[in-house]
């Protein structure tokens, strides 16, 4: 039995299908990622899974029970929303107490859980006493996580848990998420950072414009859709066409109108490539070896990049 299933979900806003027959199946104990650019439909899918929005068709099951069923237990699922959705005018501790009250967490269990959460999330009383409105982004997220975890859910749904955080703090969060997973929580997260999906997730679905393009373990996806290792040449755009001609017979091509990619080459081939460029007088801005990433997978599947800069 899957921990979470969303089957053939369709959601239409006006004329557009924001979700077009989306199916995901999450195993108990895994970290499952939804990787996709802005507007792909990640939040919409999560909110439908949670029952916050109504799908036009399709079903959602949690541990085999349809969520619209009366005997579906809401305590099974915790949610850490994209915007932190805490009560800004309440202190962190009041927010946590509030949700504990609404989930009906018994007082004794509350104390124990709070202590372990404080430890786990590195929340001290100083942070918890402050009104949420005065907390930093990272602190808020930790409080939001505590408010979701206080009811001890089996499945945690996190919508872009690290968007907008400093790279260092982001790494701390990754550690937190893996730790949670080790404690036995099933995690569904969304992200548009390919490193996040790569590093954290056991399996990933790549979602774009309301459709799931592929699903699989990051390494498998990279192998299957990421292409080979390649050399990337960064050049001024006016030299792109010229360079492409130069490397045409090696399979070089212009990617995203930004750089030249020559597939099948690696470090060993760099001197050779440099030499040809020097001979034709094309100045090089940068040259590197690239191993396929989930970004490549996305680019190969859609012809576009994951995050537009």
């Amino acid at each position, binding site marked *: 039995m899957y921990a979470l299933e969303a089957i053939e979900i369709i959601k239409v806003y006006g004329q557009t299908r924001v979700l077009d027959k989306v199916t995901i199946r999450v195993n108990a104990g895994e970290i499952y990622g939804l990787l996709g650019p802005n507007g792909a439909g990640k939040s919409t899918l999560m909110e439908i899974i949670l*029952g916050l929005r109504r799908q036009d068709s399709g079903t959602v099951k949690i541990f085999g029970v349809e969520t619209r069923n009366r005997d579906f237990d809401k305590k099974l699922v915790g949610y850490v929303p994209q915007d932190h959705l805490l*009560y*800004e*005018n309440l202190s962190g501790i009041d927010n946590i107490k509030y949700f504990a009250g609404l*989930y*009906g967490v018994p007082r004794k269990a509350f104390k124990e859980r709070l202590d372990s959460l404080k430890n786990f999330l590195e929340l001290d009383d100083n942070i918890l006493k402050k009104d949420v409105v005065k907390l930093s982004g990272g602190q808020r997220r930790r409080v939001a996580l505590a408010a979701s975890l206080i009811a001890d859910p089996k499945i945690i749904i996190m919508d872009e848990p690290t968007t907008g955080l400093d790279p260092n703090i982001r790494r701390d969060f990754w550690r937190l998420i893996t730790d949670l997973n080790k404690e036995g929580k099933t995690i569904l997260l969304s992200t548009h950072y390919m490193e996040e999906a790569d590093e954290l997730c056991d399996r990933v679905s790549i979602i774009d414009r309301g459709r799931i393009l592929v699903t699989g373990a990051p390494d498998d996806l990279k192998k299957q859709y990421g292409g080979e290792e390649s050399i990337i040449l960064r050049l001024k755009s006016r030299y792109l066409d010229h360079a492409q001609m130069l490397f045409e017979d090696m399979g070089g091509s212009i990617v995203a109108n930004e750089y030249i990619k020559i597939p099948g080459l690696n470090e060993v081939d760099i001197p050779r490539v440099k030499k040809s460029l020097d001979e034709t007088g094309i100045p090089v801005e940068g040259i590197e070896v690239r191993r396929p990433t989930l970004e490549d997978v996305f680019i190969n599947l859609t012809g576009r990049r994951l995050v537009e800069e």
Partner: protein
Amino acid sequence: MRRILTIAKYDTKIMLKVKEALFWNMAFPIILMLLFAAIFSGGGSITIDIGILDQDNTELSQAIVDIFNSTNVTKVVILDSNETLYNMLKKRDLNAYIIIPEGFGANITSGRQATIDVYIDNTDPNTADITRGIIQGVIDRFNEMSREIIEGFLLRTGRVNQSMIGFMRTYAETINLDIEPVVGTENIQYKEFLLTGIIAYGFLFSSMVSATASIVNEKKAGTIKRLILTPVRPIEILLGKTFGALLLTLIYTALVFAVGLPTLQPKIYLNIPDLLIVVVLGSLCGISIGLIISALSKTPEGASGFAIVLGIFLQWFIGIWFPLELLPDYLRILTDYIPMKRALDVIRGILLYGESIALYLNEIMYLSIFIIIVYAVGAAILSKSLSTI
């Protein structure tokens, strides 16, 4: 029940933490109450300036002047020319002036009809009313006293002897002062009126506006997403918020008394149990209206804005600051349908006249029915919109 109380507790906490809301809902009306009480009652009572031209100059005319002097609401100016008095009245230095014509005393003692002339500044009808009331009061008092005064007067002047007094007693009772018709006013001071009115201000703001804000802000801030995910039911959310706004109104009411009692020192009947019942009913009326506003508005901002505007508007039509008697009749009849006005009537009955709530069964019925219907409709609509975003 635990969930409802949890929502109520933290909702109240949030409302008490939003500084601007706290100022407008709580501090502002109380400051205004103190300010109005200071401006309009001059530290206790109003002073009415009355000019007197005593052309009679008898012991009886002097008695009238004495009575005017003995009240603490009038300041008497004795003058010697009709013209001066008239000019002072025109310049609004006087609220009224009185001419006691020559022969006034003689008319009374000889049993003929006596007349005094009263001229009142009518520019401000409210003050004119009060002035008339006070003059009427003085004349009434003079009528009560006059028998004794006349007896003393007649005895001293030797016009009658002791044996005739028995006859005079019957005679004196028929003395009639013919002054222009006057209208009496209720003998309640403004500060008591104000203190009781300010309680009803809470029904509009601490109840109606706060309930609206606390419902629609869940949507605005997105926190409703989190609430829906908990096992809490929509009706529990609404009941929790209702209790929250009610609690806030009770805190506000307690604050009004805590500030108002020592500073204004009002003469009121503090019947707390009866008062509590009306305050709860009045507050629930406000909350019910807040529910309807939240249910019918398209946007959160629209709902909060509308509730505030309605509150600002309604305060003039439920008699918080000034008596509704000042309104034209057709408006006054309409105000009777506003439940908060009815609640305030009952509050004034209890606090100002020492009446029991049992005297107001009609009002209580009206409030209860209003609450049940409006709350049910609002809750039904809102429950739907609170189950998905």
